[in-house]
């Protein structure tokens, strides 16, 4: 499921958030690939440090007050599916 609930999202060890100043782009880089992120995506990924998903969303709302919870879950689900996120509880 793309909207599976992840308790404490964090980037897997081989994936890194990166701000590409040359291209003015937020990215997740991983072997032989990169994923371009929009502003919201970048804000979410920068908070994927093992804190609880609810805390992440609450904190995110300080920057993006209108952010829908479902959209965040869906985004996290997509990253999880791509193998870029893990659950800090399980690692």
């Amino acid at each position, binding site marked *: 499921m793309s909207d599976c609930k992840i308790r404490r999202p964090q980037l897997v060890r081989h994936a890194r958030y*990166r701000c590409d100043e*040359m*291209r003015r782009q937020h990215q997740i880089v*991983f*072997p*032989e690939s*990169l994923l371009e992120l929009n502003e919201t995506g970048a804000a979410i990924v920068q908070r994927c440090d093992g804190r609880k998903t609810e805390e992440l969303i609450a904190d995110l709302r300080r920057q993006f007050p209108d952010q829908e919870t479902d959209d965040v879950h869906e985004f996290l689900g997509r990253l999880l599916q791509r193998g870029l996120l893990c659950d800090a509880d399980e690692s």
Partner: protein
Amino acid sequence: MPTKARPLALLAELTYRCPLKCPYCSNPLQLARYNRELDTDTWKRVLAEAALLGVVHVHFSGGEPLVRHDLAELVREARQLDLYSNLSTGAMLADVATLTQLRESGLDALQVSLLDARASGNDHLAGMASFEKKRQAVEIGRQLEFPITLNVVLHRHNLDHLEEIIRLACEWRVHKLELAHTQYVGWAFRNRHSLLPSREQVQRAAEIVTGARRRLEGQLEILHVMPDYFQEFPKACLHGWGNAYLTVAPDGAVLPCQAAREIPGLEFKNVQEDSLESIWFDSPVFNRFRGTQWMPEPCRSCDRKEIDFGGCRCQAYLLTGDVAATDPVCHLSPQHDLVTAARIEEKGLEAKGPEADRRDEQFAYRTFSS
């Protein structure tokens, strides 16, 4: 044609030296001509210039990059520059101490080559015993929590062991298995006669990969690079010449493609004389096959010209003698018969039966002395 595109990946070929002798090596045939390697400081400058130019991924490769004693220092430099670093190794020198030091220096990912699922086949192809070293390197890499890709180049001598190769990748618990059919340039072109598979082998491989992908979803990622000799259209080589990739060779020559230095008449600039930025944007060799203006017919009026970019320049040169020709693997190429002929030759040899077939004894192993 000038470009605004910036390279995403740098292939840093630190050395052409390598203990292995793989008969499909992508290094040049005239290895001894390029034996003066850049020093550490120059490589550090290259990395810094690459980062400024927009490079995100740096692939430390070779030859065998582990023969360079400054590899950890270069990895550290790459990390400081926020480059994502990858090491491609044949594993002969990949011991615990070395890989641990590289991990601590900030190396992000590891690629280990494997020639066959069977030790005997692997060692025969590599020209020396190396299977056990590869198995150990994967194990060490896994303990160090590297994401590991197992790279297997496919050809007639290992295609029938594909199921075993996939099983081994699962057993060794690598993250990704790259199954790349041989590209017939460099040493592989010289050994094409011995390496070219049959159409049946190629088709069976595709079926096996499809099945394995379904079975192993979420467990093992499988990348399958198809053999262009058996396809209708050429591959989108490099995603376009001078578009996303660049290679710096051991002696500092900057190449659009690692195999391109064997094309006569192309003059490659060197990082010892020019900056990476000026070479990327302004050198004639990088601009020569950018865009679509350079294309001959049938490419020029083809719908696919922005999809496959006319195919591979190195292959066009090797097969036709004209670097600007349509890649002859394309069925629309007026010189497609050059590829058909190679397939027909293979079929003829196959028909003679295994008794008369001496193709696995006829490798020209990679060597510095040729």
